[in-house]
């Protein structure tokens, strides 16, 4: 029998807070992180809302404890801040006391910094400081920067499956533990806002000019966000050995593909249905066991129909409370799965269900509506956290209360 996989630490930074405690405070206060960008050079500066982390890049390097040191992109800095908190939270003062893996996720790596100097980098006539950003464009740079800074040298890799990236990172880390290849793996993702992704999603016409409205009849697209989140996963035996407190159990997961269209889900949500069902089955749960679904809920026309159909198919008339937290954080792409996994743990720890902000009117295609107010003292034991992406990639995580 494979060992159970426990969540023993977590760290994050998003537009609604620089750490887990601040995120929880903003979620409870129902305070959205959406606004207009102060950092990004784009013609959409005052047109498209984004959920930006409220610090300049040099400001982030101070928080990350690497002020004045060169070569850290915004992506790497966001990740490093979340990583340091995750280690602290798990009570790990020396990460090398146990072979530790790091499975990171990113969709465009250091694009946030390279896109500003790309044409100088590519121009043989130009020389200068920008040369230091040459090797930061790929997704591995941020992973290695973070690993090297805190001293991780076990299994190390980066996953990129669009918006399901960090959910897949958590899944892969859990599988490394269950197979016995590792006892501790830190998993999650980091993503900074870029002109590249903003224009990418805008060219697909799925960015809303208003704050996004997931699962609302009037929804018209997503808002991008930035942030990073990591969870420390440890095997049951390591937790016992070091007497570590357990925050929650990663009790199930599934990865499926839509095989339907490069950028759209099947209208009936086949992949979402299979991912949620698979994660529940692995964790030994039936639909009635689930108290909360943190939906992917991008607020695009097609996602919310497909995901809603999948929820209705899976839960029938008894769909548990569900909400999208994207109106708080924006859609943070590769970081979303990690951020929302932490929100799932918070829901369990504090017996809360977070509201789906900006919801007004039921969608015509669905009979369900999201939780639109904060539900307190709600008995949450099992949470499904969904992350779906381009390429038909679907991932669903089942996070459960630790009960010994």
């Amino acid at each position, binding site marked *: 029998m494979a060992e159970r996989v426990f969540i023993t630490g977590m760290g994050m930074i998003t537009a609604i807070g620089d750490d887990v405690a601040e995120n929880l405070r903003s979620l409870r206060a129902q305070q959205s992180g959406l606004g207009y960008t102060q950092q990004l050079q784009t013609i959409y500066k005052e047109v498209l809302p984004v959920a930006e982390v409220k610090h300049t890049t040099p400001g982030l390097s101070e928080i990350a404890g690497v002020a004045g040191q060169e070569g850290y992109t915004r992506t790497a800095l966001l990740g490093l801040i979340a990583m340091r908190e995750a280690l602290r939270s798990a009570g790990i003062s020396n990460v090398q006391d146990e072979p530790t893996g790091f499975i990171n996720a990113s969709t465009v790596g250091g694009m946030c910094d390279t896109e500003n100097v790309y044409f100088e980098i590519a121009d043989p006539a130009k020389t200068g400081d920008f040369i230091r950003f040459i090797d930061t464009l790929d997704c591995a740079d941020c992973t290695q920067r973070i690993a090297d800074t805190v001293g991780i040298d076990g299994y190390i890799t980066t*996953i990129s499956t669009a918006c399901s990236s960090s959910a897949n990172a958590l899944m892969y880390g859990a599988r490394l533990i269950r197979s016995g290849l590792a006892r501790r793996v830190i998993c999650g993702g980091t993503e900074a806002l870029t002109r590249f992704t903003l224009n990418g999603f805008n060219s697909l016409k799925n960015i809303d000019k208003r704050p996004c409205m997931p699962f609302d009849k009037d929804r018209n697209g997503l808002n991008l966000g930035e942030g990073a989140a990591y969870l420390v996963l440890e095997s049951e035996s390591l937790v016992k050995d070091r007497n570590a407190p357990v925050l929650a159990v990663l009790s199930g997961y599934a990865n499926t593909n839509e*095989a339907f269209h490069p950028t759209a889900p099947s209208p009936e949500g086949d992949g979402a249905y299979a991912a949620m069902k698979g994660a529940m089955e692995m964790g030994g749960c039936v639909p009635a066991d689930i108290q909360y679904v943190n939906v992917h809920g991008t607020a695009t026309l097609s996602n919310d129909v497909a995901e809603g159909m999948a929820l209705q198919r899976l839960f029938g008339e008894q769909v548990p409370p569900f909400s999208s937290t994207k109106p708080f954080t924006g859609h943070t792409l590769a970081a979303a799965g990690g951020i929302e996994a932490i929100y799932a743990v918070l829901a369990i720890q504090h017996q809360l269900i977070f509201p789906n902000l900006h919801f007004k009117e039921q969608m015509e295609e669905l009979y369900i509506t999201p939780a639109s107010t904060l539900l307190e003292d709600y008995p949450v034991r099992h949470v499904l956290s969904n992350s779906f992406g381009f390429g038909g990639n679907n991932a669903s995580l089942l996070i459960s209360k630790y009960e010994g």
Partner: protein
Amino acid sequence: MAAISPQHTFDGELTQPLTVTQGNMLSCVEPDYRGFIAPNSLRRMTRVLKMGLATSLKCLQDGGIAVPGAIVTGTGKGSLQDTERFIKEIRDYEERALNPTPFIQSTYNAVNGLIALQQKCTQYNNTFVHRGFSFEHALLDSLLLLSEGTPDVLAGAFDEITPEHFFIKGRIGHWKKETISNDQLYAHVSPGTISGEGAAFFLLTPQATEKSYAQIGGLQMLYKPSSEKLQCTLSQFLEQHGVQADEIDLVLTGANADSNHGHYYDVLTAYPKWTQLPFKHLCGDYETVGAFALWLGAMIVKQQQVPQHWFPMLEKQPGRMRNVLIYNHFFGEQHCFMLLQQVK
């Protein structure tokens, strides 16, 4: 298996003469894609998407399975052409009226999505994007899936080089200053190496079949190891897989004449009896070159012969090839040992 590389590999034979490229950037010998990809799709797709998709489809054809139990890939750079195109269009059109196609195709999991879509494969699907660990983690993930009960896995890797990216990486010393042809690579030990690209896919099953080329006996990754750690890990690796040093019949090495990072291959000098063959004069260097090495090693194990015309440095054909070791690293950072064994 199937591979597109700077050599004639797509027909699945090792019979064509060595392709020699002048200059330090090796490009793939591309097949006619029309047998694999519909004409309207072909028009929209850039090079690495075509290479990745065609190689995966040919691999499935070779393995006789239409819908694999999972699709796992690795790529260091994804679709560079699409990334370059989109970044230029953002500048040229000042962020207005952009065509979304290059953005969609630039996502690293685009090839995986295309394979799943074309084969209607709704199972597990994952993409690793970590330099010299991209393919290696795709392979580890696949081995885990097989041990968890997945009946078969399509695993592969793809990377392309463009002239612009070749120039960019040249600025930080990736390539040799002197211009050489690939057949002269090992005579030019100096800083940097030559650049390459390729796609290779494998259909992996938990039990051997009549079609099996070889068995993956072991896989070990090391991140930025010291020379001592490397040495120690190699002997442990052999021991762990029950192989005596004198049972290694051939070693394929990633030695690439780069004087900055070449010293790691000295780990092999502790085993002076091993026949060592470097392979990067065939394919150049790139993030997922490990997939090409695995393809080549499996071909050699299956055919029980080293293609002499590709390896003029080989003095004498090894006898029986039961155990082939592959050791490669990517610019000194991501190191990997792979053990390939003859199917019993």
